[in-house]
């Protein structure tokens, strides 16, 4: 019997459903924990808010890893985390694969494959061609040291104070006052617009350069690259479109904090921000950037100083920034105790929410003989049990690109989701190692294996 795919059923696929639901639960738990502990450290907050975006990677890793799955499967079935359900002695996903003409796993795995592909390509693209694209898109010109020696001297002075290599300086013809970073590490370039040079005086320009320098020091290029790729992976999850600007706002506050510490008079930065905001308001009335330009800028450019006038702002409001600068809120970094307490509360809230959700689903959708604990598989099972979705247990060849590791014959077949997931995790770990510099950490705390 030809079965028609049911869209509701496909959306309830545990793979898809759990990656969305768990990330929302985790984001909610983090939000509650931060409210309870009242942590003000933007670095810690931005890292915490990044965690829900990793949820799909974790779910895919658990779902697709063929070699770790058998031993892990035992552990997972004990903890009942994975939520695979059994039907007449075989895994449900496995059974679904056998349905004649079935498309049931296609949406979930297609979303997964599409997301992983987009995320990996975007990450590789950002690092390989990102700077060149911005150069061409914004028509930037690199300033030679002879062209503007004051600006170059200012940059060198600030870079020495920040303890980083002196970045290059670029200029953009735009008459709107703005500054941003292109590239990372030693190749980083601080770009200032013509409008900025005309609007600000020497001290104010130095303050803006200090803010941009702070972004380089905080390794924000890597951070933003990670956010963009994780957003691409979870493109179907509305939460990422809310989390991404929230994280960017925290990184801006962190850059404000680190940047003002490089200045002798931090209040000058407040003056500069106000001037930029006023001038931007006038100039923005003359034109709005196209959607494509805004989208590309959002991905490739780090920290446009000018406030974006979009629904989900990536910069904190001017009032908050000015208040922080005026009150000289020297943000003490969150202590180890505060961080651990926050994580603990987050864990507790998460557990409560997950259990409550599972119980609610079990109460609303009672299904006999199902061992899954959490809920989505119950909704899923209910929807597949309507006659049109009933599985038929005849072994059928499946689309080769969507063959799961645990196929009916028990042979490990070529697992494209696993391959893509592994590639993405490898790239991500490389980036994280670059940011955290474990060699520096271990040099401070050497692990002695042998006595010298």
């Amino acid at each position: 019997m030809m079965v028609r795919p049911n869209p509701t059923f496909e959306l309830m696929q545990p793979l898809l459903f759990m990656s969305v639901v768990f990330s929302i639960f985790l984001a909610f738990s983090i939000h509650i924990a931060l409210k309870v502990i009242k942590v003000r450290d933007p670095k810690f907050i931005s890292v915490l808010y990044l965690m829900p975006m990793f949820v799909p990677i974790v779910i895919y890793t658990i779902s697709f890893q063929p070699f770790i799955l058998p031993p892990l499967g035992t552990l997972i079935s004990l903890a009942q985390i994975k939520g695979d359900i059994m039907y007449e002695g075989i895994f449900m996903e496995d059974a679904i694969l056998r349905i004649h003409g079935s498309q049931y796993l296609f949406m979930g795995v297609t979303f997964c494959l599409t997301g992983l592909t987009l995320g990996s390509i975007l990450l590789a693209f950002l690092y390989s061609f990102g700077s060149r694209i911005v150069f061409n898109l914004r028509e930037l010109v690199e300033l030679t040291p002879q062209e503007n020696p004051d600006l170059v001297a200012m940059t060198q002075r600030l870079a020495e104070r920040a303890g980083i290599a002196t970045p290059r300086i670029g200029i953009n013809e735009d008459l709107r006052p703005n500054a941003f970073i292109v590239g990372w590490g030693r190749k980083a370039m601080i770009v200032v617009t013509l409008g900025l040079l005309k609007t600000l005086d020497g001290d104010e320009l130095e303050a803006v350069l200090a803010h941009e320098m702070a972004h380089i020091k905080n390794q924000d290029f890597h951070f933003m690259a990670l956010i963009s790729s994780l957003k691409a992976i979870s493109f179907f999850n509305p939460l990422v479109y809310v989390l991404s600007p929230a994280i960017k706002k925290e990184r801006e506050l962190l850059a404000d904090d680190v940047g003002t510490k490089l200045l002798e008079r931090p209040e000058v930065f407040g003056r500069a921000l106000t001037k930029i905001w006023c001038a931007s308001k006038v100039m923005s009335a003359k034109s709005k950037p196209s959607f494509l330009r805004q989208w590309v800028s959002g991905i490739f450019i780090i920290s446009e100083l000018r406030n974006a006038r979009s629904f989900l702002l990536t910069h904190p409001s001017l009032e908050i920034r000015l208040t922080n600068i005026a009150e000289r809120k020297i943000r003490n970094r969150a202590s180890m105790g505060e961080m651990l307490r926050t994580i603990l509360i987050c864990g507790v809230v998460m557990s409560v929410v997950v259990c409550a959700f599972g119980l609610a689903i079990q109460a609303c959708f009672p299904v006999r003989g199902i061992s899954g604990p959490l809920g989505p598989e119950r909704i899923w099972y209910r929807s597949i049990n309507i006659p049109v979705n009933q599985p038929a247990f005849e072994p059928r060849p499946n689309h080769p690109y969507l063959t799961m590791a645990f196929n009916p014959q028990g042979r490990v077949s070529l697992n494209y989701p696993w391959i893509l997931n592994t590639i993405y995790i490898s790239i991500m770990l490389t980036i994280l190692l670059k940011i955290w510099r474990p060699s520096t950490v271990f040099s401070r705390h050497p692990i002695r294996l042998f006595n010298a």
Partner: protein
Amino acid sequence: MPEADYAPSDYRADGEQLEAILGSLEAKVMGTVWGMRAPVRVREVYEKLKREKKIAYTTVMSTMNTLFEKGLLDRKITKGRGGLLYVYWPKRTRQEVERSTVKQVIDSLIRNFGDSVTAYLVEMTASEGDKAKPFRRIKRQ
């Protein structure tokens, strides 16, 4: 209402062509702008001049701003790939600038050295040398 004549602030007798009334870079920039299809951007002029000799972008930018202030270029704000930027175009053609310059210089010479100018012009029209060719042409007309 017709545009007022361009009045150069000074005239250097040893300068060649436009360099007699403008700085060397200003003359180069004006020459380039006249040779391009208006309106032009700073970057376009910079790219063209860069091929002939090493030049700084900000130098071209400030030169074009100076030429705008002198009344040789006009500009407006337009939306481009780099954002909101100035585009420039020549306010006068090369011939208009040259004619205006000649008029200003000769009027000044006549005002200050009237008799000597007349005597010189008569001498030139009667002369047979190459230097007098333009004057003989005027005489024939």
